[in-house]
Structure formats: C-alpha cells, structure tokens
C-alpha cells in the first residue's frame, strides 16, 4: 500500500477562516496556502499521513448570492491543486454555511470525481439535501462549534479510510449520515421474524430500530391558493426576532423556544427607534435602521385595500437561528391556530 501523503483542499466560511463575523459575510473567495483555523487542528490530527495544501475561504452571503459565479471558480482552484480529497467545514448548525459546504462537496464529487467530506449537526437542512450525493460524505456533529476538538480527529480518520478505499461500513458503524445507498446483505432471520420482533418491542415500549427510516423533513402538501386576494386578510411572520424596543419578552439571540405576537403600529411604516432585532445569525444593522426591510409594513400599508384586502393588526415574530425542528413545528402550528382565530386568510413569512 502506498504511503503517499493525502493531499487536501479545505473550504471554510469567513468566520472559521478568521476574517470576521456576520458583517464580513459578503467577503469574496480567497485562497491561502496550507491550513487555516480548524484546518490546523485537522492537520495535527492527520500528522504525517496528510497535508492541507490550500484553504479556500468565502463569505456565506457572497456564496449564497453569487453561487453561479463562485462555485465554478472554487472547482477550478481545487482542480489546480489536484488533491485526493476535499473537506468543507465543519458547519455544525449553520444554515448558510451548511448549504455552501454541501454545494462545494457536491460540485467536487460530481465535476472532479473527488471524494468530498463535510460535517454538520443532524438538523442542518443541508444534511438532507446533500447526504445522498454520490461521493459526498457528511459526518455528524453537535450543534455548537465547541464540538470542534472532538470532530476533527474523526474527520481525519474518516478521510484516511475514504482515500485508502477501505470499506466504510454501514452509516451507523462508519460514523456518517446514511447516503441512501443499499448493499445486499444476508441475514439468518426472515423479514417476517424481524417485523414481528419489532412489533413486539413497540408494543412493550422497548426501543427498536426501523429498517426504513422516513424522510426527515415532512412533505407538506401546498395550501390551496387564496380564492380572492382582493378581499383577503393577511398576517405577517418574521423570523428575524423583531421585537418592541426594550425586548419585553426577553428574546434570546440563539436557540429560540418561543414566538410572540405584537401589535403593528397604526403608522404607514416601521420606525427603527421603536424596535429591536434580536438575532445572532445575520448582520442586523440594516434591519435595525429600517425594520421595513424585514417586515415590509410600508409596502403592505400601501397595497392594502387595493392588491389585497386587509392586514391583520398583529404580526408574529421568532428568532430563527439554531431553532430546533421541534420548536419550529410547534411554533408553526400555534401561529396557524392564532391566525385562524383572527380569521386570517393567508400569511407572509419573511425569512432572514
């Protein structure tokens, strides 16, 4: 077996690349020789077995807005380095970063035929979207970046296995999210016996494991279109954590567990001095200066009575960053019930 050093190109966002936080999310693509930030830890875990030849750093917003331009550039740069494997992240629970890592890995696998590995929290939407792309592997992490010291050695060990061509084993054993690939195996118990044992376990409140897990994200059939928009009553939801000045209900910047309903002012627009934007996941400076960019009250007031019927007096708000699926689902159901009671016909959700 060859003892050639594994050559890696590593993709990071502006935060892990050491450039800055949300205000630097518009940073364009940068290339650095050698490892940066978490790459240094990954390099240490690999020792002499591997080497991060280059690190590509790109702002999360830049990537999201200009993906058509920057992704080909990223692929071209990776190709120039001629690595054995591409690593992106870890992205933990960061939505935009997870999306970028997923896209980079997918492109590396599909266009360059390179194995591509990333790591993120199981609720990161990117897991569902990218885990089944052939050649892409996603390792599980905790939600918070403090899990980094535990994840990096796992990433190192995993990428060695992938590059060496050694079998990874089923997802659970191999420590990666299921890729949707099926391998035929033989077992001594028949399907009927296994189903029966599962049923017995279920009836006796014992743990059991399904052989066919259903999709993580519920497939929700679209609602019927609004019959008569001209007479419809609309309500607005914002996931920006927009709250009255003083944050009376103590919204937190991360890990929201509650939503609130507040009255919209009887004014033609929202004024920045009356509101706060409690959100740790995006640069809130624009929204704070002019909250209409996250809750378009001025536009809605102008269009009410013409393009649509009327605007409900209240709006709904939650801080949508690192929000657990459970919280999001419950909040959605409760907000829908509240809207129904207020005879709202349709909702607009402005996401940040």
């Amino acid at each position: 077996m060859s003892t050639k050093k594994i050559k890696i190109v590593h993709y990071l966002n502006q935060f892990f690349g050491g450039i800055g936080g949300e205000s630097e999310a518009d940073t364009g693509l940068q290339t650095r020789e050698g490892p940066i930030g978490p790459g240094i830890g990954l390099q240490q875990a690999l020792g002499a077995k591997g080497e991060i030849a280059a690190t590509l750093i790109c702002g999360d917003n830049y990537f999201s807005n200009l993906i058509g331009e920057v992704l080909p550039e990223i692929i071209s740069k990776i190709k120039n380095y001629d690595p054995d494997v591409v690593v992106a992240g870890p992205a933990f629970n960061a939505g935009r970063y997870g999306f970028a890592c997923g896209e980079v890995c997918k492109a590396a696998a599909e266009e360059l035929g390179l194995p591509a590995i990333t790591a993120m929290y199981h609720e990161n939407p990117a897991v569902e979207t990218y885990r089944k792309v052939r050649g892409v592997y996603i390792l599980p992490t905790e939600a918070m970046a403090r899990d980094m010291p535990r994840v990096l050695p796992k990433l190192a060990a995993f990428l060695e296995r992938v590059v060496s061509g050694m079998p990874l084993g089923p997802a659970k054993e191999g420590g990666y999210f299921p890729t949707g690939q099926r391998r035929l195996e033989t077992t001594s118990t028949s399907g009927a016996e296994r189903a029966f044992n599962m049923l017995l376990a279920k009836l006796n409140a014992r743990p059991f494991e399904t052989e066919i897990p259903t999709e993580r994200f519920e497939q929700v059939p679209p609602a019927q279109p609004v019959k008569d928009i001209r007479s419809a009553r609309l309500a607005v939801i914002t996931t920006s954590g927009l709250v009255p000045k003083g944050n009376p209900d103590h919204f937190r910047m991360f890990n929201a567990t509650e939503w609130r309903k507040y009255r919209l002012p009887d004014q033609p627009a929202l004024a920045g001095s009356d509101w706060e934007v409690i959100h740790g996941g995006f640069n809130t400076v624009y929204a704070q200066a002019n909250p209409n960019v996250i809750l378009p009250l001025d536009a809605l007031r102008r269009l009410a009575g013409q393009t649509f019927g009327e605007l409900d007096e209240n709006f709904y708000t939650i801080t949508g960053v690192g929000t657990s699926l459970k919280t999001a689902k419950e909040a959605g159901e409760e907000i829908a019930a509240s809207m129904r009671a207020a005879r709202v016909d349709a909702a607009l959700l402005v996401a940040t």
Partner: protein
Amino acid sequence: MAQLAQQVGASRVVVGRKIPHPCGDPSLPEQFDLKVREEIVTTALEALKTPVDAATVFRPSHTV
C-alpha cells in the same frame, strides 16, 4: 436563500434581495428601496393566488 427554502419544501418561495435585508435595498435612495419592497410584496401576493403542487420559487421582476 430561496434555494434552501425550496430544498426543505416551502410551497411558495419569493426571492428577496439579500439576507440582511430581504425586503429592500438600503443602498438605493428611499423611493427606489420602497419600490423594491412593493415589487417583492406584490410577487408574494401573486404567489398566494397561484396554485402549486410542489415547492415553487417566484422571482420579482426588478424594475429598480
């Protein structure tokens, strides 16, 4: 992040401007920023009237 919203299955997705200011463009003079906002809201209202059977993305026509 319209692509992300579509991926998780949101039925009607309207493309906003940018992540920190989805419903407007603070780099534009006030009356143009408001026009951008009206275009996005009008597109959302169109989307509400439109029957869809899968996650669908609606793009505002940017006259600004």
